[in-house]
C-alpha cells in the first residue's frame, strides 16, 4: 500500500512538481538549458552569480586543471565552468572536413549548476523544511531555517549543495528566486555572452534543445547529446539540463543519477524487518533461561 502511494505521488511530482508541493495556481516551471557547444569559458556566469547573490570567496588556488580554478560546485560556488582539453577533432563523419584545420585539439567547456531536479533528494531528506519547492518548480534553501544537519549534502547525486564553512548552513543555486519574482532572468543567463546558458520555460527549452542537438548531428558533431532533459530518468528530469559533447562523467557529472529516496519505501521495509528480528532475538534470549 505505502509503496503504491509513494509511486503515485512520485508520478504526480513528475507531472507538476510545483503543484505537488502545494502551489495551486502557479507560473510555468522554468529552468536552464546549458548548450555547452557554444560555451567559450569566459566565466561571466560565475562572476555574475557571485555578484548578484553575494556569494563569498571560495578559495583562490591554481589547480592546473586547464583554466578551471573553481573546481567544483559547493556552498560558495553556484556556477562552475569545467574545462576539458582533448586530442580529438570536434567533428566526425561526412562533414568532418569542415572542422577547423591545423589542430586536433578540442577544448570542452561547460557551465555546471544545481539541476533543480524533479525528484530532488536534497528536498526529500531535509528534516527541517528549510529546502522547499518554489512556485516556479525550482528548489531553494531557506537560510533562516537550515540547521546545518548536512543530510542534503550526502543525498545530492550531483555533488551540488554543501555546508559553508564558518557559517554552518547549506547553500546552493536558487535559480535567482528573487529575480524570478520580479520577472527577470537569472544573473548567469543574463551575463552569458553566447547564450550558452538559456533561461526559460522548461517545456520550451526542451524543444529548443532537441532542435539544437539535431542540428549538431546533421553538422557532423555526432557526440552531441542531451543530459537531464528526459523526464523518465532517475531524477524525473532536471530543471537545469545540458547539451554535452562527451560522456557526462568527463564533465564530472554522474552518468545515471537516481534520487536516493526512490528506494526509501524498501529501506523502511528492511528496517522494519530488522526491528522485528531484534525483538525475536530478545525473546529467544529470555525463553528457557532461569
Amino acid at each position: 500500500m505505502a509503496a503504491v502511494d509513494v509511486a503515485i505521488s512520485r508520478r504526480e511530482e513528475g507531472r507538476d512538481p510545483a503543484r505537488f508541493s502545494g502551489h495551486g495556481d502557479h507560473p510555468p516551471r522554468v529552468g536552464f538549458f546549458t548548450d555547452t557547444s557554444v560555451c567559450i569559458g569566459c566565466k561571466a556566469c560565475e562572476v555574475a552569480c557571485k555578484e548578484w547573490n553575494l556569494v563569498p570567496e571560495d578559495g583562490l588556488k591554481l589547480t592546473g586543471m586547464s583554466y578551471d580554478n573553481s573546481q567544483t560546485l559547493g556552498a560558495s560556488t553556484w556556477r562552475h565552468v569545467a574545462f576539458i582539453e582533448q586530442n580529438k577533432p570536434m567533428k566526425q563523419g561526412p562533414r568532418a572536413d569542415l572542422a577547423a584545420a591545423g589542430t586536433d585539439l578540442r577544448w570542452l567547456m561547460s557551465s555546471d549548476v544545481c539541476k533543480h531536479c524533479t525528484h530532488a533528494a536534497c528536498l526529500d531528506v531535509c528534516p527541517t523544511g528549510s529546502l522547499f519547492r518554489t512556485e516556479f518548480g525550482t528548489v531553494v534553501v531557506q537560510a533562516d531555517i537550515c540547521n546545518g544537519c548536512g543530510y542534503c549534502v550526502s543525498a545530492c547525486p550531483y555533488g551540488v549543495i554543501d555546508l559553508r564553512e564558518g557559517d554552518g548552513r547549506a547553500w546552493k543555486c536558487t535559480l535567482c528566486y528573487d529575480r524570478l519574482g520580479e520577472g527577470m532572468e537569472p544573473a548567469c543567463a543574463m551575463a552569458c555572452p553566447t547564450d550558452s546558458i538559456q533561461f526559460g520555460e522548461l517545456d520550451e527549452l526542451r524543444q529548443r534543445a532537441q532542435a539544437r542537438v539535431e542540428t549538431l548531428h546533421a553538422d557532423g558533431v555526432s557526440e552531441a547529446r542531451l543530459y537531464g532533459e528526459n523526464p523518465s530518468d532517475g531524477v524525473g528530469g532536471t530543471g537545469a539540463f545540458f547539451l554535452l559533447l562527451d560522456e557526462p562523467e568527463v564533465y564530472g557529472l554522474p552518468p545515471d543519477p537516481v534520487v536516493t529516496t526512490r528506494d526509501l519505501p524498501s529501506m523502511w521495509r528492511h528496517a522494519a524487518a530488522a526491528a522485528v528480528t531484534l525483538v525475536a532475538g530478545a525473546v529467544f534470549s529470555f525463553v528457557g533461561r532461569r
Partner: protein
Amino acid sequence: MSKRGEQPTVPKADFRSYYGMPVLNQPTWKAPDIPGYFFLGGLAGASSVLAAGAEITGRRTLATAGKLGALGAITASAGALIHDLGRPERFLNMLRVFKPSSPLSMGSWLLAAYGPAAGVAAATAVTGLFPVSGRVATMWAAALGPAVTTYTAALVSDTAVPAWHEAYPEMPFIFAGSAASAAGGLGLIAASLAQNAPAQGFGLFGAALELSAATRMERRLGILAEPYRQKSAGVLMKVAKGLTAAGALGATLVAGRSRAAAAVSGAALLAGSACMRFGIFEGGIASSKDPKYTVTPQRERLASMDHGQAPGSHSQPAGN
C-alpha cells in the same frame, strides 16, 4: 575467456572522470559524532528491549542496568547529533515539520517519543517512585526501542553515497545486530552472574546477526565492498568482527561462570559494535571520495538497461 559470439558481460574496469575529482560532495558528517550517534542510539534502543524483558522476568539488576544504559546512551546519542549540526542552537527546527520522506525527520520524532520514556523508566527504577508509571514507560521505551536501533540504517542508506545506499537491504540488520550485541555487552558488564543469562543470549544473537549481515553485504556489493576493506574502514571492520566474535564466544562459554570474564566479554561486544559503526561510516565516506564508485556502478546499470531494451543483440545465432 568469453566464448565466440558472446559479448563480455563484465565491463571494462577503467572509467572516465573530471581530473579524478569526486562526482559527489563528501558528507559533512564527522566522526566521532555521527558514528557515535548510530552506536549509542543502537545501544539505547536495544537496552530498552533487554530491560523490559528483564523486568517481566524479575531480573531487577539487569533491568535497572538496561534502563540506565538506555537513558545515558540516548542522551549522548542526541548530544552527538546536535554537536554535529552546523547550527546546533537550531536543533529544534528538526521538529518544525513531519516528513516521512526524511529518515532524519522521522528519527527526530521517534527520539522525541522515546527519550522521555527512557528517562522516566530509568528515574523510576533508581528511585523506586511511581512504579506504575515506571512500568508503562519501560514498556513504551521497549516498544520504540527496536525502531530506534534501525531507523539510522535507513538514514545512512538514504543518501547518494554509493557504499551506503547500495547496502540498504543489509544495513538495518547490521545495525540491529550491532545494537543487540552492544546491549548484551552492557548487560554482561552490569548484571550479576545470577541474572546475566539473557544478556549472554542477546549478545550472542546480536553478534551473529551483525556478522552474518555484514558478510552478506560485502559479498553482494561487488566493487562497492572495496571501501569497506581498505584503509581505516578496512581496519575498523576487521577489528569490529574480531572483537564481536571474541565477545560472543566469551559470552557463550565463560560469562556464566566468572564475573570478570562476563565483564571482559561484554566490553568486547560493546567495542566491536562501536567499531562496526565507525567502519561503516568510514567506508561510506571513502566511497564518496572516489569517482570510480559513483561512475562504474551507474555505467554498469546503463549497460544492463541497454541489453534489456535490445534483447537478442548479444545472443548471436550459433556459428556466428
